[in-house]
């Protein structure tokens, strides 16, 4: 039966992240309208009523939410009332975190034009330091370092038209620790 198949699939805990936060979620039980889940070790119970339009009414902790969801290539989109969430599976970001970098690259958030590059290769930058100014959606946007780092490579120059997701700057960790030297990726 379809329902049984679903239940089995739900037995596996799912690790998700939203922004910088990681979560572990496990659906423990689902029968009729009843649903029980464990989130980061904390158990909670509620009801889930599926509606014909692929949304559902979820009641937990005495509150009632209308939820919708869709799977995408690398993420799961969820709407809870008017709020939207974009969850990604927890992945290799952990290694970068170990290396002390919030992000290993400065990436164009939108297609746009590079107006200014404010750093050079080898520069030591601090968290929040402005690195690139791009013009996208008719506005100037300043892209800054999220954590202390060293500029490994500058991949863009003023006047370049860049696509969404283009790597503008590559970063390496600011402080070289012994743990890092043993990491074959960090040269």
């Amino acid at each position: 039966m379809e329902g049984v198949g679903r239940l089995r699939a739900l037995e596996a805990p799912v690790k998700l992240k939203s922004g910088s936060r990681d979560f572990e979620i496990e659906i423990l039980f689902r029968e009729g309208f009843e649903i029980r889940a464990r989130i980061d070790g904390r158990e909670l119970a509620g009801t889930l009523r599926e509606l014909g339009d692929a949304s559902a009414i979820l009641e937990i902790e005495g509150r009632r939410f209308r939820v919708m969801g869709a799977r995408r290539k690398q993420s799961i989109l969820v709407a809870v009332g008017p709020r939207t969430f974009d969850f990604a599976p927890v992945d290799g970001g952990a290694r970068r975190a170990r290396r002390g970098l919030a992000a290993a690259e400065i990436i164009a958030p939108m297609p746009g034009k590079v107006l200014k590059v404010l750093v050079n290769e080898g520069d030591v930058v601090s968290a929040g330091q402005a690195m690139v100014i791009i013009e996208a959606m008719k506005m100037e946007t300043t892209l800054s370092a999220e954590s202390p780092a060293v500029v490994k490579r500058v991949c863009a120059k003023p006047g370049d038209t860049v696509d969404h997701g283009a790597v503008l700057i590559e970063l390496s960790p600011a402080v070289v620790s012994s743990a890092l030297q043993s990491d074959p990726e960090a040269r």
Partner: protein
Amino acid sequence: MARRKLKVLLVANRGEIALRIIRTARAMGLRTVAVFSEADAHSAHVAAADDARLIGGAPAAESYLNIDSIIAAARETGADAIHPGYGFLSERPEFARAVEQAGLIFVGPRADVMAQLGDKISARKLAIAAGVPVVPGLEAAAPDAACEFAAREGFPILVKAAAGGGGRGMRVVESAEVCVAALEAASREALSAFGDGRVFIEKYLARPRHIEVQFLGDEKGNIVTMGERDCSIQRRHQKIVEESPAPHLSNTARDAMLAAATRLARAAGYTNAGTAEFLVDGDRFYFLEVNARLQVEHPITEIRFGCDLVEEQLKIACGEEIAPPSAPRGCAIECRINAEDASAGFRPAIGIVLDLRVPAGPGVRFDTHLARGSEVTPFYDGLLGKLITYGSDRKQARARMVAALDELAILGVTNTAAFLRDVIASEAFGAADLSTRFIEEQFSHWPSEDQALTEAALIAASLTASGALGIRPTEAAAQLTAADGADRSPWKALGGFELWKRQ
């Protein structure tokens, strides 16, 4: 006054406003023509019109700003008038002139009037001559003179593009150290956005309100005003919430503003719909600029006055005389739903609408071009829709807005609906403690932690991951392939997602 007959209207715009104009034109019995860029081939406005023409590539400069291409589309389709909507070419005098030279009716003010009002420096001169108060400022500011002015008047100062509008090309300069750099950046932004790098500066009022007056002018020289709109709730000088009437505004101040707008419109020889914007400090008001076009937030005026401003515009364009407006009633509020991530510095968002829930009910209007399968591209302004509520008083309009925002859900494009819901529901908004600083004062940190909501999201995500909830990929893929072409469908690579199993 020559009466002209209008039969075919071309709408030189896209998105919700193109759709909204087409609706009125159709109700008036006109034939409608849409124009679209390569990115908008499947947009709602294209489907809504009787005829549609491709006018160029996705970047606006190749399509919605391409005057020759739009005029050619009008000639080909036998259009006798062009409505420019807002944004794009709506306030470009050269466009209005080109439309007139092609023997077509431009639905808006004359090109020379638009040129005079569109340039902030000449508009300011006109306001002074018409006895309308203005904020102390300096025209065509060179860096040296600007710094001198700032030293005299005190920081902060506001730098504005002479050809700008809608908050673009504006910057607040807080201190002498960054003054020169900010002037350069503003000038650069102005040059790229408007093709005109001239800037001017003004004294920056600390906690002003932004209140504007809607007016209409006809060819006979009649000017009528249709109340005011309070647009104080802004983010980075972009309006996000508007309401009418302006709360806590004395009748004396209101009457004085309406009279000032009338004087200004008369002095300019204004025809068609326009808006005079003012900064308001207590009961004192200062002229900001005239928007020589239909405003984004025009529906709140329509609802209070029981009229259709696009219909008024089309009648005026045909040479008809304006009828005096009826008495306004109740209160109307508008929220602009933008494709932005309010929890990440309002970063612009793009995507495909995978699922959509639209609010309804008494006193609720939602102007949008979105449908399931619509794609939000990075090429244009990210306005997804305008939610408007009406109430017999502000309390009712506000309660309806909160309920309507709670009902709204757009899955697939991160948007500001939840942020706006919290803004409207806030005590500060309830007390109508309004100023253009409202958002930075009240909502600089959003969202606040809501554990139950996060848990609900996680449960929903987990169920979606396993396929127990949400749009079934097969069903959605069929829809999206039809709407967007197989290449761009996010479902194409579906299956790339895996559950992370405990080993």
